[in-house]
């Protein structure tokens, strides 16, 4: 036993896991599948974009209708993600800290937007908010119109993004050490001070990650939005719909150009999210 453990120890430092078989085959398969399904198709998009001249590309991605769609998509996504940060934090807090009747069901229900197909969410929200719907019939007389305009888009995006914030903040809150709060109280902090100075800084990275995820998802969202948006050019037309519209007119070059812009943005957001997650891990796991 002794000799074997002595033999394992230095090897362990060099290559800790080569004892387990299957590295080459799983890595090979993973890379092959990744290339076939994701990388080669996405590179088709990039190559197609490079067949355009710069002027063609620029015209396609900065047309007035496209610019209006960027403003709408980013504005609505930003508002929806901010609303989700506030209510997502609240829901996560309530689910972690308090006991109440039906908590397990509420907890399970939070994932509904992940499981419910977006088209179903779209038609159902539209039915609710339209002038004759359960909610719309009370709001319409007051002059509040939530369906078939930008308001509807924001509501659909709140629905889609909600679980992202809750599910990133929840585990961090669960792991938070109560001792820190006790210490803060002993040192004379009020509950609000404890929250803003002790608890909030420890969950801020998770909150930002959830925000970025909800935002990224909202920008690309299509299914739930198109039913409720009304889809009027310049007013309530989102960027993914612009791509579809160009495709339906066989304007492949234009569709590709706009899609490339969206791809670059989602890639940047992905890197930001990854950076935030690393930050969060270092915050919670690293030396204080």
């Amino acid at each position: 036993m002794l000799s074997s453990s002595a033999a394992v120890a230095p090897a362990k430092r060099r290559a800790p896991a080569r004892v387990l078989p299957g590295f080459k085959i799983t890595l090979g398969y993973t890379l092959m599948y990744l290339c076939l399904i994701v990388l080669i198709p996405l590179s088709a998009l990039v190559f197609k974009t490079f067949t355009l001249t710069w002027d063609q590309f620029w015209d396609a991605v900065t047309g007035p209708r496209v610019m209006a769609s960027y403003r709408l998509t980013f504005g609505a996504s930003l508002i929806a993600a901010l609303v989700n940060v506030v209510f997502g934090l609240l829901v996560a807090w309530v689910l972690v800290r308090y006991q109440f009747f039906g908590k397990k069901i509420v907890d399970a229900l939070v994932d509904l937007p992940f499981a419910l197909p977006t088209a179903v969410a779209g038609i159902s929200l539209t039915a609710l908010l339209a002038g004759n719907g359960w909610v719309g019939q009370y709001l319409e007389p007051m002059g509040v119109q939530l369906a078939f305009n930008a308001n509807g888009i924001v509501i659909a995006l709140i629905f889609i993004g909600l679980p992202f914030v809750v599910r990133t903040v929840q585990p961090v809150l669960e792991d938070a050490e109560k001792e820190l709060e006790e210490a803060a109280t002993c040192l004379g902090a009020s509950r609000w001070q404890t929250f803003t100075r002790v608890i909030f800084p420890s969950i801020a990275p998770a909150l930002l990650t959830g925000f970025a995820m909800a935002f990224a998802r909202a920008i690309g969202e299509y299914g739930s939005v198109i039913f409720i948006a009304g889809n009027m050019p310049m007013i309530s037309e989102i960027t993914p719909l612009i791509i579809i519209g160009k495709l339906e007119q066989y304007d492949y070059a234009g569709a590709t150009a706009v899609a490339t812009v969206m791809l670059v943005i989602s890639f940047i957001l992905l890197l930001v999210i990854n950076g935030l997650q690393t930050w969060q891990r270092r915050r919670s796991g690293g030396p204080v």
Partner: protein
Amino acid sequence: MSTPIIRRAEAGTTEAPWVRCTLIGISLVFLFLFLVLPLAAVFAEALRKGFDAYWEALKEPDAWSAIRLTLITALITVPLNLVFGVSAAWCIAKYEFKGKSVLTTLVDLPFSVSPVVAGLVYVLMFGAQGWFGPWLQEHDLKVIFAVPGIVLATIFVTFPFIARELIPLMQAQGNEEEQAAIVLGATGWQTFWYVTLPNIKWGLIYGVILCNARAMGEFGAVSVVSGHIRGQTNTMPLHVEILYNEYQSVAAFAVASLLALLALVTLVIKSVAEWRHEREMKAIGQLSPENTQTAYATLSVKAAS
């Protein structure tokens, strides 16, 4: 609980009852408005003209073919992504290698790509003017506006689900158990089957049902590649859209209600999987030190023999 000192100490780490009730109230109202109402509306709208109209809408041949196509798509997509997910999680969680974080990021990539863009890239590859378009036409094969395109787009969109679920789980569990199995003479396959799989099974189930729900419900990507040929390339979500745009509200919500039921079943299975996993984790945590030592003793006896 009753002494004033303890009460004061507790007050430092929790909120006053009225704050607690207000917070719970606000979040329940918010969740009711944004989650419960839309879900209830689906079923209410579907049954608005009675159960017979609901049943008629589901019996329609176009609805049937949409259901069939959705099932076929999920049946191809989920196993393929399952094999990929397990293989990606195995090499990312169990080994250290250069470029690991890049690989992890790339696995996540389809999550942040808009579904519409996902559909478009396959049109650029296999469409009439795409890379393989002329070759496919020569050989009389159809990918875009046909079932293969739908399957491919669905695979892309649901690509990271299972891997994403498994990687953190397998990383948290570490390699010790697998190494022990290998040292004791198990083959790699036996190690995976008897040691790794029981450890990750709840995460695996969760990943599979989420992947399945998304595969059956995907709309954006599929709508780009499908061509919307009724009775042939319409999946359930696309069929919902067509019916809805034709003002056949009851029929649209009837098909949608099936998808909503699928979502509810998904949530139930997911919750059960989570609770079981938590219970198992607790059971392991409650093992007394002697038990752990007995386990190690048994291990070393087996190793010696």
